[in-house]
């Protein structure tokens, strides 16, 4: 156990077969002040008083929790901890000269990683991130943004196939990049699984591509490649451990860490982050576009997919790639996009998992007018993921926040009662 960027983290790297019985997120009963703030951020209700009344909170059962970590990043008392960490395993792999260690950072990581090193909130530090990964000893600096672009090619094409009837799958099509949403769907709405894109998430794609295409390009032996997924997200640890994620013939994703854990590793290695030069990732699985970097925001996958689908369907060039109608800060945002040769494409962007429930009920009843729906578990998207550095005011004003949380909770209880 250790504290990683203000979050207590157990040094526990489970095997895939155990992933369903591990608490990725849990409450330290001795630290919980019973303020109830965490419950306001949990879409499933997994986090609740242990004794059913108003005592210290607990995550009821791993099956009820989608591992999003929103409770953790919003607890004013630091009472919630992470139960899984691959940091030690990665340090060992980096030390082993035989192992080819490759990095796979998600888009949103580069918008949060600067904060632990004193940069203002949201500062883009992509170039320094690549330099830091090289300094840490990663053999290839591959970038999950490259497979975000591949995801658009695959998921955009799948959508077109559904729209034209080329594949017999229902509409609307849901996005599939967010592992919190996917576990939620599998647990609470399995009847909608045919509506969810069959595309793996960008990291679900980069893992197997590293050990096939990446091995080919670098002439590395695939069995020697160790893939490290670096995510703004705790739920990605569960995704990396899914037993089916082994299409390369090996474990596609060997280890998953959060933005916070990468910051911890950089500090632990004694790297002076701020003085690093800006570097580039390695081209073949590292080069990427603006469409990929916006995956980190709610509405980003939608916008990136529309930049593709528009041109394929209409045969025309999309002159202005900004599609601001689908950019979302929170809640539900619907838009109608006119695509020449198709007509009106009805799309919807859901930010914050709880907001998905009414939309899912509509789809279940066959009443949804949408063609394409994006769901992100975390409000605002991955930039606000449960694995990102904590915002300073979460813990700073903890007494005031706790009081407010209590008032809100009592207010909510009165409303419900």
């Amino acid at each position, binding site marked *: 156990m250790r504290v990683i960027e203000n979050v207590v983290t157990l040094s526990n790297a489970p095997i895939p077969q155990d992933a369903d019985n591990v608490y990725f997120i849990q409450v330290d009963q001795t630290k919980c002040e019973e303020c109830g703030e965490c419950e306001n951020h949990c879409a499933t209700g997994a986090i609740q008083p242990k004794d059913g009344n108003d005592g210290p909170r607990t995550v009821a059962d791993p099956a009820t929790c989608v591992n999003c970590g929103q409770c953790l990043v919003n607890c004013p008392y630091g009472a919630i901890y992470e139960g899984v960490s691959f940091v030690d395993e990665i340090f060992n792999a980096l030390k082993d000269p035989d192992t080819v260690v490759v990095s796979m950072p998600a888009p949103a990581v580069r918008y949060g990683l600067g904060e632990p090193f004193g940069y203002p909130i949201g500062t883009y530090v992509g170039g320094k991130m690549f330099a830091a990964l090289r300094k840490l000893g990663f053999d290839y600096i591959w970038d999950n943004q490259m497979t975000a672009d591949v995801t*658009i*090619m695959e998921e955009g094409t799948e959508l077109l196939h559904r729209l034209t009837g080329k594949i017999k799958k229902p509409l609307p099509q849901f996005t599939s990049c967010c592992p919190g949403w996917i576990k939620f769907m599998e647990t609470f709405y399995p009847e909608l699984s045919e509506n*969810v894109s069959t595309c793996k998430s960008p990291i679900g794609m980069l893992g197997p591509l590293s050990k096939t295409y990446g091995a080919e390009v670098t002439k590395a032996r695939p069995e020697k490649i160790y893939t490290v997924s670096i995510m703004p997200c705790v739920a990605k640890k569960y995704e990396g451990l899914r037993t089916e994620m082994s299409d390369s013939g090996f474990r596609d994703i060997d280890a998953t860490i959060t933005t916070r854990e990468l910051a911890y590793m950089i500090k632990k290695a004694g790297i002076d982050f701020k003085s690093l030069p800006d570097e580039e990732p390695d081209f073949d699985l590292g080069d990427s576009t603006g469409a990929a970097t916006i995956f980190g925001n709610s509405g980003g996958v939608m916008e990136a997919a529309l930049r593709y689908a528009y041109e394929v369907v209409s045969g025309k060039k999309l002159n202005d790639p900004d599609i601001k109608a689908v950019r979302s800060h929170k809640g539900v945002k619907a838009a109608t996009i006119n695509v020449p040769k198709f007509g009106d494409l009805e799309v919807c962007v859901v930010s914050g998992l709880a907001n998905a429930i009414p939309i899912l009920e509509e789809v279940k009843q066959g009443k949804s007018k949408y063609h394409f729906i994006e769901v992100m578990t975390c409000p605002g998207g991955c930039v606000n993921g449960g694995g990102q550095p904590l915002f300073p005011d979460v813990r700073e004003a903890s007494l005031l926040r706790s009081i407010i949380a209590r008032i809100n909770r009592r207010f909510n209880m009165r409303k419900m009662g």
Partner: protein
Amino acid sequence: MKEIIKVTRRQFVKIAGYTVGAALYSWNFAKFTYAAVKDNIATRQESVYVQDTKMKVRKSQDSPAVKKIYKDFLHEPCGHMSHHLLHTHYVDRSARVKQLKAKGLKLKV
């Protein structure tokens, strides 16, 4: 007097919560603090959109690395290779939660 001072931290939080709470209620203070957190999210989001406009290429289909991987390895979107490596299936995980609910566990969904 002594007894009033000897409260635990948890009790203090409770007392403070009830007294200050009444005062803050009508000022809509709660909304105010939450707004501060949301602004942090917006700050990160804005940084993403700025970076998007700075990228040399802004559409996935125009990416040189994407063109190369489809030419040399994947061949076409949603083709045979893609289905093998890049697509997946989903698992029905509802049974375990149904069991827990039958035993009395209350959830929001």
